[in-house]
């Protein structure tokens, strides 16, 4: 066992670190971008540098413009990148989920048209899957695509689309045959987000912030050449995308409260029995938080180790979001409770209390996003432990004849 890099890893890390230090220097100490344009420009600038330096698409096949290298190299790059001031995030969904779907299921022309431009940062992508009535049950898609000559006409609504308003293209899953069984009548397309009939609206969360969009499609035209996979095979295509999502879903959101923050808040808080940090119940929560936070981080180390050894990580990874989201809600509420009525006052941005308040709201969403607590437990029990699936209504009923039970 060894937590340190091996020789090759260390050499790579040194190289990467030097490159990042040189290239990301210009972003240090910058204030947050003031406009969406400035935000996009920074992100695009950095993506282009990565492309130029040979650090874009590190694990992608060379024929798609990638570097064809091992996952560990991508991980080391991203670890170092996240320690720097480099502006990242805008390309994560496009390059992490959309484009791999494009190069797995798209025609050679489509690959030629889209992949390299995305990798170079020229075009930004989003993923258009969730709908108001297709959340956990993603195959319940209702957005319709109807064939019209060599085009398709799309109508419907998508939700929870990250950065839709900044994107150039998206991958969209639609129902093309309502008479087929639920999972059989779906088809995936590339859609031009600037096309006529596409409207993005910010989706306001209960916290008041808007981190996502709703996207409405009103007679939007898509050429059949932009279809990904065969007609009616959209569900299989979506599974490719989602597999990449599972790998991408990380652990704890950066800056979310952890055991040390609870310890800090408890140190300055009085209870009826003296300082909070001396109280056994508070200490118990700190211990629990450490076990959860650090346990998830160590579990991720196990997965990285497997990657580093050229193995496929085991199913351990699947526990991360389940543990993290719940923990975030518990610890935020507990710390806010400790702070009594002070934890109820808002408006002091940047304070520990403000972070706890944000987390208390954010955690409620994190318990739902990317697989609810309940769906994740099902996945763990069924895929890892081999328990049978929930009893479900027959799968072969035509979608438009399904009677909810």
């Amino acid at each position: 066992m060894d937590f340190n890099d091996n020789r090759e890893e260390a050499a790579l890390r040194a190289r990467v670190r030097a490159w990042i230090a040189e290239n990301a220097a210009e972003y240090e100490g910058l204030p947050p971008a003031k406009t969406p344009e400035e935000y996009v420009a920074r992100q695009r600038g950095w993506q282009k540098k990565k492309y130029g330096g040979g650090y874009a698409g590190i694990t992608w096949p060379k024929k798609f413009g990638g570097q064809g290298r091992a996952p560990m190299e991508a991980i080391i790059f991203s670890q170092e990148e996240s320690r720097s001031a480099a502006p990242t995030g805008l390309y994560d969904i496009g390059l992490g989920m959309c484009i791999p779907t494009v190069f797995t299921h798209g025609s050679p022309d489509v690959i030629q048209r889209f992949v390299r431009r995305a990798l170079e940062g020229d075009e930004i992508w989003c993923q258009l899957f969730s709908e108001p009535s297709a959340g956990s049950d993603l195959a319940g898609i209702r957005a319709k695509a109807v064939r019209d000559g060599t085009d398709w006409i799309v109508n419907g609504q998508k939700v929870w689309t990250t950065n839709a308003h900044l994107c150039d293209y998206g991958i969209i899953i639609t129902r093309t045959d309502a008479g087929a069984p639920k999972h059989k009548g779906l088809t995936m397309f590339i859609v031009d987000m600037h096309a006529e009939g596409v409207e993005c609206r910010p989706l306001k969360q209960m916290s008041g912030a808007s981190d996502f969009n709703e996207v409405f499609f009103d007679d939007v035209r898509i050429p059949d050449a932009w279809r990904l996979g065969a007609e009616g095979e959209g569900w299989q295509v979506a599974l490719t995308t989602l597999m990449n999502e599972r790998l991408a879903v990380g652990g704890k959101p950066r800056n979310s409260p952890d055991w040390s923050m609870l310890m800090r808040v408890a140190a300055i808080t009085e209870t009826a029995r003296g300082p909070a940090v001396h109280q056994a119940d508070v200490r118990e929560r700190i211990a629990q938080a450490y076990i959860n936070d650090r346990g998830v981080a160590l579990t991720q180390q196990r997965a990285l180790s497997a990657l580093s050894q050229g193995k496929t990580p085991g199913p351990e990874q699947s526990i991360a979001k389940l543990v993290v989201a719940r923990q975030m809600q518990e610890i935020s509420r507990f710390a806010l409770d400790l702070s009594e009525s002070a934890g109820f006052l808002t408006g002091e941005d940047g304070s520990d209390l403000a972070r706890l308040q944000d987390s208390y709201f954010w955690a409620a969403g994190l318990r739902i996003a990317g697989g609810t607590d309940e769906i994740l437990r099902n996945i763990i029990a069924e895929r890892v432990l081999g328990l049978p699936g929930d009893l479900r209504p027959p799968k072969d009923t035509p979608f438009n004849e399904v009677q909810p039970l």
Partner: protein
Amino acid sequence: MNFDFSEEARELQAQARRFFDAEAGPDAARRILNDEERAFDTEMWSGIVDLGLTALRVPEVHGGLGLGAEEICLISEEAGRSLAPVPLMSTLLFTEALLVAGTPQQHERWLPGIADGSVIGCFGWGEGRSQLPTAMPDTRMAKGGLVGMKVPVADAPIAHVAALTVAGDDGPRLYLVDLAQDAAAVERVDVLDLVRLHGRIALDGARAEPMGGTSAFSDFLDKAAVLTSFEAIGTQDAAMTMAVTYARERVAFGQRIGRYQAVKHKAADMYVKQQLAVAHAMHGAWAFAADAPELRQAAAAARTASLDALTFTAEENVQIHGGIGFTWESDCQFYYRRARALSAGLGSRGFWSERLVRALEQRNAETA
């Protein structure tokens, strides 16, 4: 034996409920949410006053109905259920402070206005830092008046008079402060609850009159705990109903999500926590009404159990709703936020569970 509310009290509750069902609820809350000023609903307030809800506890000699604890507990439950954006709970708490600790002169001065709805009262103990309701406040008598700061105080921006905790010899005690004076400056503050108005009261030598000593304050705190427990149960019941209704209708994977045990058992847990809270709150109502020595422990148990039920239900209501529950447009946020307000309003569950154990130790010592 009869461990239940009287028919008369239940009838009054039903009346209040009909009123709130028609006038209040999430839609009324959303009107306030969308109003930058967070102005309270004066029309609804008139209706409440007309129903006699502010007059309930006021003795007949002061123009009220002179009713007991039972009625006011059930009205608190309805206030909680309805999310009513009016200063009803604050005024009820202020009334109890007056009844527990006020002088005859104070009664004479303030109770008639409460009964006829012209006086809005409030109660404040927090001072903007992490602090317990029974901790010694910084606010004290100096410069011939009160000096200090009380925040957050529910409904302070629209209240005429406040009962505030002030440093006494051996703990906090209550002072009555007429807010119509320059030395008691009130401004609105932002809090997690976006429907109920909160304020900061800055006291700079404000004229104030004592209302009882530390032990009277402690009695008041217990009675306030009983009332806010009923309020919390009402809010919890509304959130549970929202969750259950959605689980009966929403379909995923071809079946209504209420069929899934994960959802169903969450709902059952909401109910179990609710029923424990109700049992303790009723015990509290009885002890309040009977002036029983069990009041301290009953109130603490009621408050702890009701906060547990409300917190769990508010959080899992969002979870049962899934993505939609996490949006601004969903009503889930009202309960999620109100749960924080109720916790912050009178000390969190940790404070009350500790108070409960102290009361149990006390009783053990007495019976030993």
